[in-house]
């Protein structure tokens, strides 16, 4: 304690239990925050309220039977989860996906990125205290994307659309025109949305310079995705380790310098624009042909191990599969983007106020389904 602090009133830290039942912990996250008045001096995250043991369950399921479970990991971007898992199994079994299947995968994965960022940005504003307006504007557009997915695979959230070696069903004939009609709507909306919130004084005051994550710390913690890119790490698996057919498209990787909450918001908005760009190229190029390789429903991949990672909307989502040649994986490990991205939360929030704690936590964009698995 310095002398100046001794002169002021004695305060006593107290512990505030935020979550698991709390309006803005994005599910059932729990933090034991040690507060000094309003200032957060320390937090200790507590996990496990949504732990369903998917890694263990997967050891008793066939390779195809695991796909519905991957939907339930990051329930805001199931298509990306499906994609990552299928890539890992395909790598293991050496399956080649037909052209049309690849294009359908890219289109759905990018639409999923748009839908996920809609929630991420909207929920971040909600955590900042905006009374649902930015959230609902985003949801309005996410709903349209979900509607398209509904047409594709019959459900709005748990798609179970991709299969090992392709996708489960072909595109309906009205799908691509609908996407083509949706993209200009979304572009117009994004312009309007930036006009709406980007300069809002209160939002700028709340987000600029708040919750700074330095580049070194981000790398050290293994942080990936928009959070890492906002800190100035120009790392995107779509470009650095192109999976599927991402090397055929032209797109930029938006990055920012400061690594504060504003940058995380801004990088996400820019990423949405880039996704629109990829989609615009992809829907023009979709070839005819088979959409699914001839893979039986029960497969026996050779013994061995494989790791496939994709750039999911939240960051690097990886699947590590060890096979012993049977119909079920011997070991199934998910690299949880959300859990690892939370790793720097403590460093980011210390010294900020309670309000910032919620806001910084919201700006990381996690899903508890993926954190606890």
């Amino acid at each position: 304690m310095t002398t100046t602090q001794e002169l002021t009133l004695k305060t006593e830290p107290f512990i505030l239990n935020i979550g698991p039942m709390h309006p803005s912990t994005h599910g059932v996250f729990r933090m034991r925050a040690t507060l000094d008045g309003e200032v957060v001096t320390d937090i200790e995250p507590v996990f496990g309220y949504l732990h369903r043991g998917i890694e263990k369950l997967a050891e008793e399921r066939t390779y195809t039977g695991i796909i519905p479970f991957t939907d339930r990991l990051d329930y805001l971007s199931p298509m990306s989860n499906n994609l990552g898992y299928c890539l890992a199994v395909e790598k293991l079994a050496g399956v080649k996906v037909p052209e049309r299947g690849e294009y359908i995968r890219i289109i759905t994965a990018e639409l999923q990125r748009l839908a996920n960022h809609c929630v991420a940005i909207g929920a971040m504003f909600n955590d900042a205290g905006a009374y649902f307006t930015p959230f609902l504007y985003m949801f309005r557009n996410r709903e349209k994307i979900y509607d398209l997915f509904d047409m594709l695979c019959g459900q709005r959230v748990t798609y179970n659309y991709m299969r090992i070696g392709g996708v489960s069903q072909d595109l309906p004939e009205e799908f691509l025109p609908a996407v083509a009609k949706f993209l200009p709507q979304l572009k117009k909306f994004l312009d309007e949305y930036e006009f709406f919130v980007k300069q809002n004084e209160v939002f700028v005051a709340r987000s600029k310079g708040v919750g700074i994550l330095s580049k070194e710390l981000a790398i050290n913690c293994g942080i990936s995705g928009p959070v890492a890119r906002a800190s100035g790490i120009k790392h995107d698996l779509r470009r650095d380790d192109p999976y599927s057919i991402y090397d055929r498209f032209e797109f930029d990787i938006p990055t920012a310098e400061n690594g504060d909450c504003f940058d995380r918001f801004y990088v996400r908005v820019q990423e949405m624009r880039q996704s629109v760009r990829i989609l615009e190229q992809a829907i023009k190029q979709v070839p005819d042909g088979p959409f699914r390789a001839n893979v039986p429903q029960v497969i026996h991949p050779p013994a061995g191990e494989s790791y496939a990672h994709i750039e999911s909307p939240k960051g690097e989502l990886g699947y590590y599969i060890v096979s012993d040649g049977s119909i079920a994986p011997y070991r199934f490990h998910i690299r949880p983007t959300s859990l690892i991205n939370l790793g720097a939360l403590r460093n980011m929030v210390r010294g900020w106020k309670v309000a910032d704690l919620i806001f910084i936590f919201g700006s990381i964009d996690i899903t508890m389904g993926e954190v606890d698995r």
Partner: protein
Amino acid sequence: MTTALAATEIVSQLSAQFPGAVEEAGTDAVLVKGEHLPAVVEYLKTAAGLKFDYLNFITAVDYYSYFEVVYRLTSLEFNRYIVLKTRCYTRNKPSVLTLTGIYQGADWQEREIYDLMGISFKGHKNLKRIFLWEGFDGHPLRKDWNR
């Protein structure tokens, strides 16, 4: 494309630096002895030309006769990756040295492995269960666990 650092390429370098550390070198993975692991990782992270500064993930696999802990490191600068493995041959309180001092991101992943696989990490400051509650019987991801 993130290319693998061929094991043969790195093994000679590592054997020269840490004699006896490399147990076995597969095609895509390097099997490192448990007691040398932090030193090897530290070297891989800092050495010029390697700079494996990004820890992708840590996981563990139960092979009945031994536990295998898998580390995947990526070098963002050179866009290469390497997979390190280490084994512990005991089923009763297996332990590996921690990497939390080198990568902060290892913290919760090591806790997760401790929780679900029962491998303790020596030197980890806050090694307690992460998903399951204290007092849970056994470690569910072990192959011999049954409810």
